[in-house]
């Protein structure tokens, strides 16, 4: 198995772990972290597969995508954390309520 495939599979694995985390955990902070882990998985896939010609120089375009992705992830995480704090302030809970309807 070549290196690229290894990184890609690892990335996929990390992605799946993150996905599992988002679904399973109830504590919002864990969910947010799980999303970040998913993101890392995707970035790993992108960077790992970043070769146009095997054994040639790596392709810079996916790297640019990863950097963009990281920036977006930072912004998103910031928003998520602020929302979490607000929710904590107002409702005293860090867990999403089960049923929204009245």
């Amino acid at each position, binding site marked *: 198995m070549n290196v690229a495939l290894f990184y890609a599979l690892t990335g996929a694995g990390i992605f799946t772990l993150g996905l599992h985390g988002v679904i399973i955990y109830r504590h919002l902070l864990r969910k947010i972290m799980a999303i970040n882990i998913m993101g890392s998985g995707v970035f790993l*896939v*992108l960077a790992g597969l970043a070769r*146009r010609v095997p054994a040639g120089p790596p392709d810079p375009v996916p790297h640019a995508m990863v950097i*963009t992705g990281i920036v*977006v992830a930072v912004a998103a995480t910031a928003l998520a954390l602020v929302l979490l704090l*607000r*929710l904590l302030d107002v*409702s005293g809970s860090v867990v999403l309520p089960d049923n929204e309807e009245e």
Partner: protein
Amino acid sequence: MTLILLPLAGAMLAFLFPRAGGRLGLLTAFSVLFSAIALAAVVIGDGVQLHLLGGWPAPLGITLRTDGLSMVMLLVAAVVGLGISLYAAVWFRQEPLNGERFWPLWLLLWSALNALFLSADLFNLYVTLELLGLSAVGLAAVAGGAAAYAAAMRYLLVSLLGSLLYLLGVALIYHACGSVDITLVAERLSPSAASRAALALMVSGLLLKTALFPLHFWLPAAHANAGAPVSAALSGLVVKATFYLLLRLWLELFDTFAPQLETLLGLLGAAAVLWGSLQALRQSRLKLLIAYSTVAQIGYLFMAFPLAAAAGLQAWYGALYLVMSHALAKSAMFLAAGNLRRHAGHDRIAELDLVAQRLPLSVSAFALAGMTIMGLPPSGGFIAKWWLLQAALVQGMWGWALVLVVGGLLSAAYLFKVVGFAFTRARGTHEACPVPLSMEWIALLLAIGSVLLGLLVLPPMALLGVGDPFGLALEAGQ
């Protein structure tokens, strides 16, 4: 390009000068509408427009492309956006702090929408998706309060999840094709394990964001707990944008990859129609009813996928006509509901009678918008339903036809439940909060727009067809 920069600039300025938010917002809204109309004129005259950012050609550069489909979406966003902006300018006079937060987020959302409609580059689309999602979540949270924050949080998690699925798909596609420009990818893409996986990922991500049953769980709370202009934007525009993206990917890239997927989408759509309508019937709060109605209407859109197999024109045009009419009608409904709620201080349906009779314009707006939802003439919704039924019946797909008909009946049930209150003898009095006439008129005008779409069909059809986005030139006539 201006269509993206204008709202972006507006957003920045509104952020920097919060107290001028309303005026900046309106200025931006009008300019965007004029630019959109200008662009439409160019598109009708000269066909598909391409713009290369920075002059860099693909595969390195990012292409912006406008064909009939994009143009229609841009125009719809521009018109509805103007309506929302005008309404919000008046609405937030009562809540100035929320108003200051609203404008930058709203303009950011709008620029994300326009960018999404114009981009022809998969990664750029990812960025626009994220921008769209984050600003939408922000707007959902503006209202404040535990319910809104919880709904926004859920929306955020869902949105991020969806975007990441999409991004993973993009990664796989880039690996397979060496580019993320849609045209190039379309040429190079062939069915393989990697591309099928990419299809699955991207479609799942976008389905999550478009709230197709059963991935709709986040929508009712998010749309119902937001302030009226925000709900209008979310239901009217945001879910349409993600649907548009899914459609675009399907038409350009994945059309022939997985016929079973068409049926699956159709089945989920049918389930959405039935489930959403039934849930709407059960609601005791007006905004939740309207939100579930959105869930149901989205289902109709997905039913076009299996119907397009042999009746592409009717199915796709029907779906798009529903997108256009629903955008206008649903935003009108949410704005009208906002009026009712502000007047009464609550939105419990059972106690709407006195409110409804004091605000005849809002109720009329609601009723007229309801005609589109029910698919009754004259309205854009009727035309959409006509086409979709035609597509179903000409192929002998009785099951889909039955769902279309039953869906219409159910929507009549839950809508008339509300409209009936406009006519009952009002019981008792209560403290009424006055509602400015302009807010009522905006809701009414948007609703009239959806009715007009039902009367003037040929022009939108002509615009939609520019550049043949649905690949219909290869099919025989209707």
